[in-house]
């Protein structure tokens, strides 16, 4: 909410406080000032290195150069039809000023004005916004000759002074503007843009903010200011209670409805000062009557609605007007002020007369009874509504308005008649209306006062500060709470402008928050928790996953983190599922379901990046979402890996164009699993993994449990992506399954005796698996063979068709120094065993 400082000053003396002081106090107390917009007042100048506190914007008006002046005559320009020359007095001298302003053009050549026009006058050298430029561009006013006439100064539009974007016409100040006074002293202002928190609806108005400032500064809130003194109604008029009656059908959502009447209003523009404040607050100035409802709302917080009383009277057949507030019928229609026909549901409330609907209660008025330029008599409504109902209605009809903003956050019913009185007061002031006696006030459901008991111990326990009941009472009284000390307790009654104080334990927390705010968060000490430290258990699952991430990174894989949201089309390129967790309100078609495959996420990322590098090794750890009928989905954790492209990074002198294949991925997975200390792992080819190449994929098993699958992406799947020419290797693990396997701890001791190394090559049938040969070597060698490493696989006609040679590097180790003869003995045993078991022949 935007609040001009000048308006606050109607209710609190702010002398001695800078604009930034005020903004700081409000910000720390929960009314965060997002920006300060200077509109005339001097702006703070930061020296090099000095600290800023707020985002600031705007313009300061030079007191020497920009002053209030009066136009005494509007003359024709000798060489230009559309321009005029103004005889103007700036408090010191007569000046001749050239202008093209359309809003005084009609006075051209009418001679000396009977009543001079007060304007904002800028002299040579003034810094202003350029009235002709797009947006806000600063310029310095320079002397020039325009169509043969010397021009050295100007009368200003709102745009030039930074009040609004309006540049069509000059500002016409109120008649009592003091000529010669610096404009900054007269209407210089600064606007605080304040975020109103959902529990601070009471402060979405000038008096609310002034009240908080009064509490924060210890100054007095001047609500008894003459502006709030409702003038006595003109007594010779008929009382509104004789002319209007009201019935409320749903008091639980519409607990109060008040209305007052004002007669013989003269519709015209509001005084300039009113317009200026409204505009700075972000509201368009329309006419004195509409402005009065808005002005009273911004000042007090109670939204008001003005009906054309004569229209209502006409509809009532010139008899007593009877207003009824009731639930709409499903499908009932009303045309709102914005000329839109709206179809209602039974949760919407309608203000009706006997002929039909008039307004959508608390949200927007209807078109028919709207105030027009011809309106003479006005019935002003101030009502109270349930905030949740208004919030629903405003959302349902997409009708955010200043009124629904306030009503949907809660306006206390006690404000209703005050709002009406204030609105009527401004109408009488600005439109010369006569207020009819009385107020129709139907108030079937008065909210109970919130009363909360507070002890010093409560304050100590929650806030950690020692305060006496008297101190607590003082802090709360500043915010208009009523406090009574009895029996070591403070009985606190919430003021009747706020609805955010509950009862019982909730009310206590609400009140303690106000104690803390009033005391100042900054003044509360900073302590270390004295409470017992809970037993430390750690989080083994989380720690394990982090360890897994570290292993993957050490293996050269880059982590990615993807959107949980995807589309069935995108995922079904790699896996097909019948059911998905779907959104009721998807943000976009490509984000309409929750992912079921982590491989799909990683492949999407690979595809997005494929042109950016010639080698990729990506992984992701995260949840996938498996739908469960009428229940929350399962969220199993998965690991997915994808690799493609060059095996090694090329340099300017080293080229290696080999690309990743099955065994690159397998090698990494072996290292990964050994890093997790998992043993007894077996790899089995499979043709049931549909997204993988049937000849180049495997299941990874520990015992009978499949913990993951990996291999080369199936050519038909790869075709559906743009993934380049190299094979794409993928792996997926079910982390719960991996975590479920007990790790094997312990090490193989490092022998102090030197090992003996030897290479042997055996020729076997193509069908014999490498795994079998290695197992036989290990079995036969027993403890004497500490390492078996396959270093070559060779096929050649010389060794026979359908045969292959497997060459192993063996490490012999013993708990004594091993001789070549010892090694030869073991080797012979191994060779014999291989011959016998798989028909192997030693290759010489």
């Amino acid at each position, binding site marked *: 909410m935007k609040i001009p400082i000048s308006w606050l000053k109607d209710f609190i003396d702010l002398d001695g406080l800078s604009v930034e002081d005020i903004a700081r106090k409000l910000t720390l107390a*929960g009314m965060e000032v997002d920006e300060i917009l200077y509109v005339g007042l001097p702006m703070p100048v*930061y020296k090099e290195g000095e600290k800023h*506190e707020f985002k600031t914007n705007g313009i300061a008006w030079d007191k020497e150069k920009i002053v209030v002046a009066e136009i005494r005559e509007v003359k024709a320009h000798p060489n230009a039809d559309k321009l005029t020359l103004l005889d103007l007095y700036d408090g010191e001298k007569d000046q001749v000023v050239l202008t093209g302003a359309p809003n005084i053009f009609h006075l051209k050549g009418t001679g000396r004005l009977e009543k001079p026009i007060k304007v904002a006058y800028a002299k040579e050298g003034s810094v202003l916004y350029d009235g002709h430029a797009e947006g806000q561009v600063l310029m310095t006013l320079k002397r020039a000759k325009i169509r043969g006439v010397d021009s050295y100064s100007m009368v200003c539009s709102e745009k030039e002074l930074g009040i609004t974007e309006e540049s069509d016409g000059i500002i016409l100040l109120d008649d009592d503007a003091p000529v010669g006074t610096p404009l900054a002293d007269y209407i210089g202002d600064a606007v605080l843009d304040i975020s109103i928190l959902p529990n601070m609806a009471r402060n979405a108005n000038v008096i609310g903010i002034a009240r908080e400032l009064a509490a924060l500064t210890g100054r007095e809130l001047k609500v008894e200011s003459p502006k709030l003194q409702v003038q006595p109604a003109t007594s010779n008029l008929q009382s509104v209670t004789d002319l209007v009656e009201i019935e409320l059908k749903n008091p639980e959502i519409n607990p109060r409805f008040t209305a007052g009447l004002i007669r013989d209003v003269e519709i015209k523009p509001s005084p300039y000062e009113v317009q200026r404040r409204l505009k700075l607050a972000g509201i368009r100035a329309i006419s004195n009557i509409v402005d009065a409802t808005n002005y009273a709302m911004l000042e007090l917080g109670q939204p008001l609605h003005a009906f054309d009383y004569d229209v209502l009277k006409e509809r009532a057949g010139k008899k007593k007007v009877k207003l009824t507030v009731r639930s709409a019928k499903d499908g009932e229609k009303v045309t709102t002020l914005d000329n839109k026909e709206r179809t209602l549901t039974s949760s919407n409330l309608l203000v009706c007369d006997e002929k039909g609907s008039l307004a959508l209660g608390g949200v927007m008025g209807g078109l028919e009874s709207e105030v027009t330029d011809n309106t003479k008599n006005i019935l002003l409504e101030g009502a109270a509504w349930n905030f949740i109902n208004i919030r629903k209605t405003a959302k349902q009809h997409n009708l955010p308005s200043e009124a629904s903003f306030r009503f949907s956050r809660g306006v206390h019913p006690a404000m209703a008649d005050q709002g009406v009185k204030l609105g009527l007061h401004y109408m009488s002031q600005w439109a010369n209306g006569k207020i009819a006696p009385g107020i129709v006030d139907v108030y079937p459901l008065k909210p109970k006062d919130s009363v909360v008991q507070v002890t010093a111990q409560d304050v100590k326990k929650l806030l950690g500060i020692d305060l006496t009941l008297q101190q607590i009472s003082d802090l709360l009284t500043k915010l208009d709470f009523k406090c009574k000390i009895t029996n070591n307790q403070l009985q606190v009654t919430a003021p009747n402008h706020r609805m955010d104080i509950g009862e019982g334990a909730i009310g206590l927390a609400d009140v303690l928050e106000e104690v803390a705010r009033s005391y100042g968060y900054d003044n509360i000490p900073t302590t270390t928790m004295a409470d017992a430290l809970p037993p430390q258990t750690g989080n083994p699952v989380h720690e394990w996953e982090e360890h897994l*991430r570290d292993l993957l990174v050490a293996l050269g894989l880059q982590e990615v*983190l993807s959107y949980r949201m995807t589309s069935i089309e995108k995922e079904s390129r790699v896996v097909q599922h019948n059911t998905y967790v779907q959104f009721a309100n998807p943000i976009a078609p490509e984000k309409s379901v929750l992912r079921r495959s982590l491989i799909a996420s990683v492949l999407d990322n690979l595809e997005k990046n494929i042109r950016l590098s010639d080698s990729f090794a990506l992984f992701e750890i995260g949840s996938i979402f498996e739908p469960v009928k009428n229940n929350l989905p399962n969220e199993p954790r998965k690991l997915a890996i994808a690799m493609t492209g060059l095996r090694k990074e090329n340099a300017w002198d080293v080229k290696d164009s080999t690309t990743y294949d099955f065994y690159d991925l397998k090698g990494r997975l072996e290292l990964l699993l050994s890093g997790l200390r998992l043993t007894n792992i077996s790899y089995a080819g499979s043709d049931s993994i549909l997204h993988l190449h049937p000849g180049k994929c495997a299941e990874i098993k520990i015992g009978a449990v499949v913990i993951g699958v990996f291999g080369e992406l199936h050519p038909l799947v790869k075709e559906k992506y743009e993934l380049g020419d190299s094979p794409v290797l993928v792996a997926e693990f079910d982390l719960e399954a991996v975590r479920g396997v007990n790790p094997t701890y312990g090490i193989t001791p490092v022998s102090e005796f030197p090992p003996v190394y030897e290479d042997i090559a055996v020729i076997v049938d193509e069908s014999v698996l490498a795994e079998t040969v290695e197992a036989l070597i290990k079995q036969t060698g027993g403890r004497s063979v500490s390492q078996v490493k396959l270093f070559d696989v060779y096929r050649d006609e010389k060794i026979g068709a359908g045969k292959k040679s497997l060459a192993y590097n063996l490490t012999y180790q013993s708990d004594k120094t091993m001789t070549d003869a010892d090694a030869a003995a073991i080797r012979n045993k191994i060779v014999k065993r291989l011959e016998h078991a798989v028909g192997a022949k030693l290759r010489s």
Partner: protein
Amino acid sequence: MLDKLNEIEKSALESLKSVTDAAALEAWRVANLGRSSALMGVFSEFGKLSKEEKPVIGAAANRVKVKLEAEFESQVQAVKNAALAKSLEEEKLDVTLPGRTKFIGRLHPSTQQLRRVLAILAEMGFQVYTSREVETDEYNFQLLNFPPDHPARDMQDTFFIKTDSETDNPMLMRTHTSPGQIHAMRQFTKTNPQDPPPIRIALPGMCFRYEQITARSEVQFNQVEGLAVGKNITFADLKGTIADFVRRMFGEGARLRFRASYFPFTEPSAEVDVECFVCGGKGCQVCKNSGWLEILGCGMVHPVVLQNGGYDPKIYSGFAWGMGPERQLMLRNKINDIRYFWGNDVRFLEQF
């Protein structure tokens, strides 16, 4: 004979001066110290000398031999040094040519930042507690003191899950990690319902908001919350704990301020600003010239939330705070577009 020796010495030393490579050195050695050299000739003719001459000539010949050998050795060294100097001179690399790199792995920046945050919290006694990403309205809102249709829900636009029938407890994507507060409290109360144990946990995880994806807003983001519940926990403790955390996270000198704020599940609530660590509070683009950066929201756990978790608010109190690792990274690294995080462009990821 002595003259001859002098002559041999003089000419040999003279010729050694011009010898500059290994082959020539060997040739010189053969010519001047080898078996058929003139010097050796003197030694072989030794027998022919008179008794008187023998010691004189012998001594002189030996002196010449030692001298020539010494000079030869020093010339060998000189030639070696010259050759080394030459090769060192010639083997100069262009040190500005790029080094040969290798493919390495990295953690996603969000993971890195989550780890930093959780590591500090762990040292402060806050243990990791994780919970599900798809939640019910009850856990995400109602139990956290957001009644249905409450205006506070406007602060958290929500993705709802499609179901077959209407329900007043719809499934949704969690909008914050706070449902974990209820899960954790209920889990802890189970262990001892009469006198539940104190709690100190960190709740990390992905959260979701129904927002258009722009440079400033995303549909998903990580959050980390800290939660402490016990019998003697005050707002002053909250301030102290946050101050400790901020000092560890943003540096010894990081000034901070507590602003009153509103969250349905805490009361009193506050937002914490830290002095802009990019400009030191002088005002810059990152802090929008305000000198402060909003880094976390916090407050005392609302009595309704304690109650819903099974902790009697008359006996227990607690505090919670929440923050965003991606936001911290954006501020620290001047990242101006939040979409980088789930875009996973390798050119972004490789910078962390």
